[in-house]
């Protein structure tokens, strides 16, 4: 799978999140949208929900079960969850380095 495909997948998850989220937490479906920090509209539970949606889509599309919020993600100097773009890059890295 290409990075562009994974970016599209994460953006789909953002759109699905927007359907269930309160207005204040709806996100712009764009690669530069912030997911963490002061410039993010998501609260911590919102981020958990978005990560769950991304994991679900990966399982459905690629039949792969990733745990995105593991020790490795948490120990990175720059969090992979800071933006849609960085999340897509992290998912792409995990999917391509552990290809069965």
């Amino acid at each position, binding site marked *: 799978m290409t990075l562009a495909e994974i970016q599209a997948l994460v953006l789909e998850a953002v759109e699905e999140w927007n359907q*269930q989220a309160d207005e204040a937490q709806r996100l712009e479906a764009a690669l530069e949208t912030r997911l963490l920090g002061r410039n993010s509209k998501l609260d911590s*539970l919102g981020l958990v*929900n978005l990560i*769950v949606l991304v994991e*679900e889509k990966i*399982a*459905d599309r690629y039949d792969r079960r990733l745990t995105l919020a593991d020790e490795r993600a948490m120990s990175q100097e720059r969090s992979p969850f800071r933006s849609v773009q960085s999340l897509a890059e992290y998912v792409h890295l995990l999917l391509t380095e552990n290809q069965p």
Partner: protein
Amino acid sequence: MSDSAVMLISGTRKGIGRHLAETYAARGWQVIGCSRKPSDLTHPNYRHFCLDVNDEAAVQAMLAEIRKTYARLDALINNAGIAALNHALLTPIETARRIFETNVIGTFLLCREAARLMQKRKWGRIVNFSSVAVPLDLEGEAVYAASKAAVETLTRILGRELAPLGITVNAVGPTAVRTDLVEAVPEIKLQALLARQAIPRLGEFADIVNVIDFFLRPESSLITGQVIYLGGV
């Protein structure tokens, strides 16, 4: 999306779980059951999965199937559990590990995966299984009671973590009910247990269903993180 409410029950091949599956299927729930071995329960509202509740991949695959088929999960009854009656000095470490794997890891894994699906509709009821062995500190059940104490802590903390998602998490703590699990308990031990209850009789399936019904009711939306014991313990 399924029109009828969907319930997942673990450990449905026999005993309490089997009774729960029959009861709720008869009441019109769509019941999904699971156990390590196949079930001979046939009912139009019942579907069975063969798996170990501590097998992460198998549990995830089952929940993915429920999501794709029914697009909802209303209730999870974490009934699957194993016990071993033994003096601590004679308890094999493998037995201790097995009990924790099924009772604690299995319960946690099903809670985690079920809540992921439940939160989509901002609604869910999780009922875990504790035991009177926890408050009574029953001798001979050190590891079993410790595993159920862990289930109680999971219940309280998940009650808090899942509350914003519209999911309640509670536990029922049955006294002894005549099932295979209790079959191995010597009569003298059983009588000693009953003597410590305010109401000294064995539990019936209906006693457990009654507590679960209470937790499942829409009116119980303000009840979470609670453990209800049978027998007045």
